[in-house]
């Protein structure tokens, strides 16, 4: 081997190692310091692996629902690999948020979560003039995001990483193409799993929609659930292990034209938390929290669901009520379906209130955005801090088009 060849081979080895090692990003780390084992000379237990094994077993057989028999301990044990909301090492405040501009011109906006300033944009790899545009968005870490691009009737996921000053450092395609339109997505902090809603056009006037959880490393679909006819997904959120996915959707009474729907139809919002063990079965809705929520966020350990709920008595026609109503940002125990706490309240007319929730990857902070304000909620400390600026362009969607053309979770941080 010549010195030149040696240099080349050494350079290639370093580059290959660096590239492979970079798949573990510091901001996406989810393991933590193990607890000191009990005194004794026994072999250290592989609690980490065992916890995941018991979690997988539990996930295979358990449907998390209000009336279901569930093993909260088993679910919680999954947090061994997940981000901690208790002041652990992954509680860094997200510095940037990314939004899908409603105008849909083939770019994503990157904004400082502190000042609201626009720091960069993410263009589609395929020029939007030739048909490519961003349709879905999810946060993987404080500066790592996943976005779904739609090109005709085919979708691709891309992962992009931001620099410290909020510009795009790198962007790469992840996984294979997906036939259909990925309309909304959520991903795990390690980037291994993605949950998404996919619409497939079957014929000129017929389409099917379903929810999926896919392993992006193997490319395999872990679970899928068909969405009932006449239902439209408005938000979804995956836990840190990819073992549960919260979804909110709404139902319009069928057989109505858009005009009739808009002016007269009842709207029934529903919520569910799905686990892979129930793949392929009809979605079991959570009736206890059927309170017109439109944006959901699931805690990293999958035990708590955050939603804006309308307070008081809610009917199918409540959404047309012109008088102000109270919205409560509730924390809900997934296992029991009970509201464990109300983190914040807002008062607004339903049709003018656009609640968007985005949970930081550490699970500690919620970004709470509506058409009027943007705020950061420290969940543990119950601190609600108004932030300067707003994502004004969310207003373009307007409440009137809610669900008709609006993006699913157009906000990630």
């Amino acid at each position, binding site marked *: 081997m010549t010195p030149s060849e*040696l240099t080349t081979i050494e350079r290639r080895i370093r580059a290959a190692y660096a590239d*492979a*090692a970079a798949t573990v990003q510091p901001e996406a780390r989810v393991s933590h310091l193990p607890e000191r084992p009990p005194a004794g000379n026994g072999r250290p237990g592989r609690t980490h692996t065992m916890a995941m094994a018991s979690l997988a077993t539990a996930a295979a057989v358990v449907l998390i629902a209000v009336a279901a028999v569930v093993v909260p301990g088993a679910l919680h044990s999954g947090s061994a690999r997940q981000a901690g909301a208790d002041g652990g090492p992954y509680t860094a405040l997200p510095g940037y948020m990314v939004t899908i501009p409603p105008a849909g011109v083939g770019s994503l906006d990157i904004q400082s979560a502190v000042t609201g300033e626009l720091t960069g944009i993410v263009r589609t790899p395929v020029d939007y003039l030739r048909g490519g545009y961003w349709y879905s968005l999810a946060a993987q870490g404080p500066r790592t995001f996943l976005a779904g691009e739609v090109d005709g009737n085919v979708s691709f996921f891309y992962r992009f990483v931001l620099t410290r000053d909020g510009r795009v450092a790198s962007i790469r395609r992840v996984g294979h193409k997906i036939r259909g339109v990925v309309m909304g997505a959520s991903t795990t902090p390690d980037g291994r799993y993605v949950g998404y809603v996919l619409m497939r056009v079957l014929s000129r006037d017929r389409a099917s929609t379903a929810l999926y959880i896919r392993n992006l490393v193997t490319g395999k679909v872990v679970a899928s659930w068909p969405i009932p006819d006449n239902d439209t997904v408005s938000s979804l959120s995956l836990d840190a292990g990819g073992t549960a996915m919260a979804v909110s959707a709404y139902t319009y009474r069928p057989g109505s034209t858009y005009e009739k729907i808009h002016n007269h139809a009842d709207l029934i919002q529903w919520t569910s938390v799905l686990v892979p063990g129930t793949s392929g079965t009809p979605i079991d809705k959570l009736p206890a929290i059927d309170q017109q929520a439109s944006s959901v966020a699931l805690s990293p350990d999958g035990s708590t669901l955050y939603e804006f709920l309308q307070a008081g008595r809610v009917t199918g026609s409540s959404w047309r009520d012109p008088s102000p109503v109270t919205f409560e940002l509730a924390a809900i125990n997934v296992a029991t379906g009970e509201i464990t706490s109300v983190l914040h309240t807002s008062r607004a007319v339903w049709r003018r209130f656009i609640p968007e929730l985005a949970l930081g990857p550490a699970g500690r902070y919620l970004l709470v955005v509506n058409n009027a304000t943007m705020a950061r909620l420290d969940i543990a400390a119950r601190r609600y801090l108004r932030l300067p600026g707003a994502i004004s362009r969310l207003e373009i969607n307007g409440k009137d088009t809610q669900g008709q053309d609006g993006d699913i979770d157009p906000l990630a941080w």
Partner: protein
Amino acid sequence: MTAPDPHRQAATLATAVDGTANSRSRGGGMDAAAASLDTDQLIADLFHAHELALVRTALLLVGDRATAEDVVQDAFVGLYRAAGRLGNPGEMLAYVRVSVVNGCRSVHRARRRTFSRPGQHEPEVWSAESAALALEDNRLTLQALARLPRRSREVLVLRYYLDMTDQDIAAVLGVTRGTVSSTASRALAVLARKLKGEL
């Protein structure tokens, strides 16, 4: 994202460890509980400073992140038990590195038992699916590296990812410096032959 410099981390840790060690010696008659707390803090500092590099190192040896994390977690569980008999707190990093390498060897042994046919198990780092995550030439290099004998892989990871000296590699692997050098030379020659058409 800039990868953390393992050497800088090691220096930082050494400073932290030395400082703590001095305060311990000044403490004189410290009781067992306080000593245990000190040890826990040392281990926590070590974890925060080196966990990422250790997981990445294990990833390069076992090929998938979940297993790599498990190996590092087990190494730290073992460190809790071994910390009391480690004479110098500065030895903790060396101990954990050895544990990680040994843990990766155990993973390979277990895989050999599980998968009867060699090569049936394709960890994600060098699997075909990783093409989307790694550049093609890097993937080819990783695949070639994965086919090297175990000791060659360990030497190359420690030398070219952690930038360790042959002396330090010898200490981690429990072999002589000459063995490290000859193993690396053979491995590089094999790689050069395999990748010849692309160099």
